[in-house]
């Protein structure tokens, strides 16, 4: 196995392993994905961070933005979202209560990581219409 393939397969541990949390995706056609496409005996898991760092464009200072970021292994997805599509995702917000999930929209352009086999989503908090 070459190094790039090794890095991708290591995501099963680094991204989907003990630090990962189970998430549920819903595609634009309403079809849900709960299991991993790599192994349907396993739940779809990924890295869920409830905030992330950005740079304040006016001052250049780093700021922590309270917006969740979800990183998934591309090969675990049944289908890769296309820019412009609206997907939904349920993520756990408490590390000790992963059964309770909150809904977020995925509508922003996707962020790369394709070389390393990952895909990153910035989640949009959603209120009742």
């Amino acid at each position, binding site marked *: 196995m070459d190094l790039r393939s090794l890095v991708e397969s290591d995501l099963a541990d680094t991204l989907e392993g003990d630090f990962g949390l189970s998430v549920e995706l*819903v595609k*634009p*056609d*309403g*079809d*849900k994905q709960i299991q991993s496409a790599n192994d349907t005996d396993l739940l779809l898991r990924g890295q869920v961070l409830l905030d992330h760092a950005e740079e304040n464009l006016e001052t250049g200072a780093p700021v922590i*933005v*309270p*917006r969740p970021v979800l990183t998934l292994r591309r090969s675990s997805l049944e289908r890769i979202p296309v820019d412009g599509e*609206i*997907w*939904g995702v*349920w993520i756990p917000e408490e590390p000790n209560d992963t059964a309770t999930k909150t*809904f977020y*929209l995925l*509508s922003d352009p996707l962020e790369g990581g394709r070389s390393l086999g990952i895909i990153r989503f910035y*989640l*949009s*908090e*959603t*209120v*009742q*219409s």
Partner: protein
Amino acid sequence: MNFIEIRDAIRTKLGEAAVARGSFRVIGFQERKKSAPETAGALRSVEVFFQRGDFPKTGGSPSGPFRHKMTFSIILTATAAAKADLTVLQNPGSTAEQLAAALAAAKVAANEADDILDTMWSDVFESLMDARNLDFGLDFPLQDRWIDDFQKSDPAERGSFVMITGSASLQCAIDEDVEGESGTAASSGDALTTDLKIDGDTAPAGITAGG
């Protein structure tokens, strides 16, 4: 100066519109920069404040009245999150068709904020440019009341929220009179009394000071 009364009258009229229409709240001064949660939902705001005054030399004399062309800034701020039918999306029993319909009907945050700002501006314009508000309820005439444009900012991402601002200028003109410094009111201890000499009155005339 009259512009202060005009400023207060505009604030009052907009405040009444805010209560009647419920689409915004009024901030009658130029506020500091606000974070997204401070302007989200019902906290969307309309700032109105006196920004500029022009006094054309040809519009008055050195002793007054002075022609005052006023510009009031109106700044609208709306912040929104994405919207969707969560009763369907968070229901484990929803079918694929229901989920698809709910996703298709979802509104992204930029769309929601844009719509909110359009509604706010419509309400603000209708209030300020109402024919009954030619003088904003004041008891002196106001001239050249006009709003000549409105401009929206680009949507700004603030975490999960999107914030959009809009700005306009309300112009009007008034004649200002400078009344000068008013004298100090006399207290009882400083009263001056004057005795008038009237025919037949033998008492001495003069001015005495005292209470």
